[in-house]
């Protein structure tokens, strides 16, 4: 089976999974106590007629199974429905919130991968030396500390006390600098940690400033969300590298006089990455879950906040839409993980005869 066919096969396999997600989510949302219309009208002087009118308007007067059927009919036509609470198409809401969440999650992964792999290799190379012990402590702290707490600490130290980074929010690459121009950042170079005062006479402005602010705003939430991934990956990398470096083929390479650098890069490193890829794919759900809390702490308007609001307001259509998107992202992540195996490990095939 070729790569394309395998990918299509996996996506077809995902359809019943997504279908199952819709049934379970729809049932759970509708079983939850509360009435979305009453929630919408909280604080208003209400009469029965108004409640009835609104129930009819949102189709809430129909039986649950009929609502599910009409919802799924819409989904199959590409319509995720209308949010009760926001009075907006669910697809518009998701499109406006998906970007920040993906930016946060992907940057956290980038941070985790870029830091964990070198540190894991270093710990393996310096096994049972001080560097290894330090990495073990860092990993233990990273795994056991909640991301939101790390976020709060980062805000207190680097935003409130030192003033080096902004305490909240993201600057989006897909928005023009004018969208932020209103706040009138003082010469951004002045905001550089430690050495900023030396650059007080310089300003960037326009796109350079925009890029600078994107990075500046992203740094703290990225570290808060990426620390857990970094710690997990670092320990796995270390373990796998130690195992690889003790392999028969490495011993043979050493006997042939291959340099240690080449052994590390060509022989040990590549085979050690398979578990890393697995963990990256499977940890996508953990990262999305962590993003919900990090978004709250850093006041980022992403999918996590949207989902929490949807649950609070019993916004059935929005709950369904966000769940479907999260489910789809996770499934895509798993499929990409599976496909990546073949690139790293030549022994892996996509099954069948080509």
């Amino acid at each position, binding site marked *: 089976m070729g790569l394309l066919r395998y990918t299509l096969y996996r996506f077809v396999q995902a359809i019943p999974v997504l279908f199952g997600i819709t049934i379970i989510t729809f049932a759970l949302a509708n079983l*939850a*106590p*509360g*009435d979305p219309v*009453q*929630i*919408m*009208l*909280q*604080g*208003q*002087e*209400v*009469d*029965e007629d*108004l*409640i009835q*009118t*609104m129930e009819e308007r949102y189709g809430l007067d129909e039986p649950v199974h009929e609502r599910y059927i009409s919802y799924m009919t819409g989904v199959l036509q590409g319509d995720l429905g209308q949010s009760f*609470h*926001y*009075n*907006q198409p669910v697809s*518009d*809401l998701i499109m*406006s*919130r998906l970007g920040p969440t993906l930016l946060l999650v992907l940057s956290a992964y980038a941070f985790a991968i870029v830091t964990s792999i070198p540190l894991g290799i270093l710990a393996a190379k310096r096994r049972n030396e001080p560097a290894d012990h330090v990495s073990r402590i860092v990993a233990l702290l990273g795994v056991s500390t909640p991301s939101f707490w790390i976020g*709060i600490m980062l*805000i*207190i130290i680097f*935003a*409130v006390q030192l*003033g080096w980074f*902004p*305490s*909240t*929010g993201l600057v989006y690459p897909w*928005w023009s600098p004018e*969208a932020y121009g*209103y*706040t*009138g950042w003082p010469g951004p170079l002045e905001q550089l940690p430690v050495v900023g005062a030396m650059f007080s006479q310089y300003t960037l402005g326009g796109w350079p400033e925009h890029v600078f602010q994107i990075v500046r705003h992203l740094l703290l939430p990225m570290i808060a969300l990426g620390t857990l991934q970094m710690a997990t990956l670092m320990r796995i990398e270390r373990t796998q590298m130690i195992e690889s470096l003790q392999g028969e083929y490495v011993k043979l390479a050493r006997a042939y006089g291959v340099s240690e650098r080449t052994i590390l890069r060509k022989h040990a490193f590549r085979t050690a990455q398979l578990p890393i890829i697995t963990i990256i794919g499977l940890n996508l759900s953990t990262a999305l879950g962590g993003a919900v809390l990090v978004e*709250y*702490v*850093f*006041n980022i*308007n992403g999918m996590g*906040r*949207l989902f929490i*609001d949807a649950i*609070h*307001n*019993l916004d059935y259509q929005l709950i369904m839409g966000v769940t479907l998107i999260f489910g789809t992202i996770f499934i895509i992540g798993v499929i990409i993980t599976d496909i990546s195996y073949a690139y790293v490990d030549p022994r892996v095939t996509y099954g069948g005869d080509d």
Partner: protein
Amino acid sequence: MRGNNKGATRRRVLVTGVSAGALALAGCIGGNGDDDDDGGIIDPDEYDYERDEPDDEDAAMDSTMVYTQELERDDDFDPVVSNDAYSMQVAELLYDSLFEFDYEYELQPKVAVDFPDVERDDTRFIYEIHDGIEFHNGDELTADDVAHSFLAPVEEETPNATSYDMIEDIEVIDDTQLQVDLEYPYGPWEMFNQGVNIVPEDARTDDVDAFNTDPIGSGPFVWSDYQMGEYVELERNDDYWDDPLPYLAEIRFEDNVDDSSRVGEILAGDTDAIGDVPNADWDEIDGEDDINAHVAESPSVAYIFFNCNDGAGTANADVRRGIAHAFSATDYVETYLNNAAAPVVTPTSPITNELWDFPLDEWEDAYPDYDPDLAQELLDENAPDDWNPTFMAPDDERATLAERVAQRLDEIGYDMEVQTMAFDQMLDQTIYSEGDPDDYELYISGWTGGPDPDQYLYSNFHESQEEINQGHHYEGSDDFHDNIIEARETGDQAEREELYTDVIGEIIEEVPALPIFTEHNSMATGEHIKDMHVHPQMQYNPHVVSGDGNVWVDDD
């Protein structure tokens, strides 16, 4: 320039050791229940800042400000549709209203030239509006627009329909005059409902959905930029018809729903102002030299409601009184909400009471004070055998009140089960239920009303609102519910006052609900933000331009 009393008294209180911490300790070990001792509870009058005028008006006219709201906006900026306070905080700067609330919470003419002529037994109101007011698109604001603003919520069946469904007919006399006829005399009309935001009929009806994302009013600010769920930017309306013209050239609204994160923003200087300073962070904010803390009374009341259905122990008024005497609301506020709230004794808020000539001294005396001996006596005599009531509370700071009541009852030998849950879930199991005593005998909920007692009493106590806005099922005396309706459907304010005096008196005496506290409106602003004053009407905040204040930024 800071107000004369700013913080001084508060700090003296802390120095003398009557601090929230000390009271918290007292509360935990039992408290003294002395309602006369309100040490540590904030006094909003101490945060009443003086006016602050700029030396350089031209520089002030370049002011820009970022305001961080405490909850997410629904982004409903059309006042015909919106019942979201945070969207309305934006909208109040875009639209003018026929009448607007002053800082005493009384309506004053705005677009209206004066108060209306009232005819036909308080059912006909003839309004004259200012000539020559223009909407932001250049259209003239006429009586037709005012009529549309009144009628559209009913015609379009929006959540605001009940505010205007008593209107029988509106006749537009000419461009500057209209006659509003009500089906019956409606008591709150003059104090509240006639303060309608005025929308441009033609621009709005042209495309209602588009109007919400590009709203047009006649107010001091015009719509500038918007990203759904992210921010709203408004610019000064340089052609504004009324005085004063705002100093602020631009104001940007963002939101941050996480309390600690929002406080972090103002501490880090990442925003100019935040709404709602959490009780626990008040001292830190107030102690910062470069931040000003603001607080004002609001028309909110939090109540403990008692299930009065047959079969509930709390159906017996003496049992309700027993519970009310078992704990001290003042102690509770001192312990948990000393910077954010004040104890109350009436089902209407203090700010509402100030507008009416109610017998407050009499009611204060009648309010059940902390008396554990009397509580035990009342419960021993009247509580059912094996009485084990359930108290439902939302899983926020109000849960601590339920725990406090349960603790006090435990001290006098009675078990009470406290169930905390998400607020919406709690409403579903109490207010929207039939009131099964096995499910609950007490629950706690809050209500934000207004200047008129009807805004509290009808929704929270009239029998028509059972299972819609209330879950206590109180039958009341023969006249109780009739009085609420009679007061609602008469325009004679003296008669209304008399009727409300009876209704409120009965509530305090019979305790279908026990008023506990009123929560204040609070705000924190950077020291560079000048002439900010917090308004009792939450939707008016940030109140950046009025006859009583004009916010500007001091960059020096």
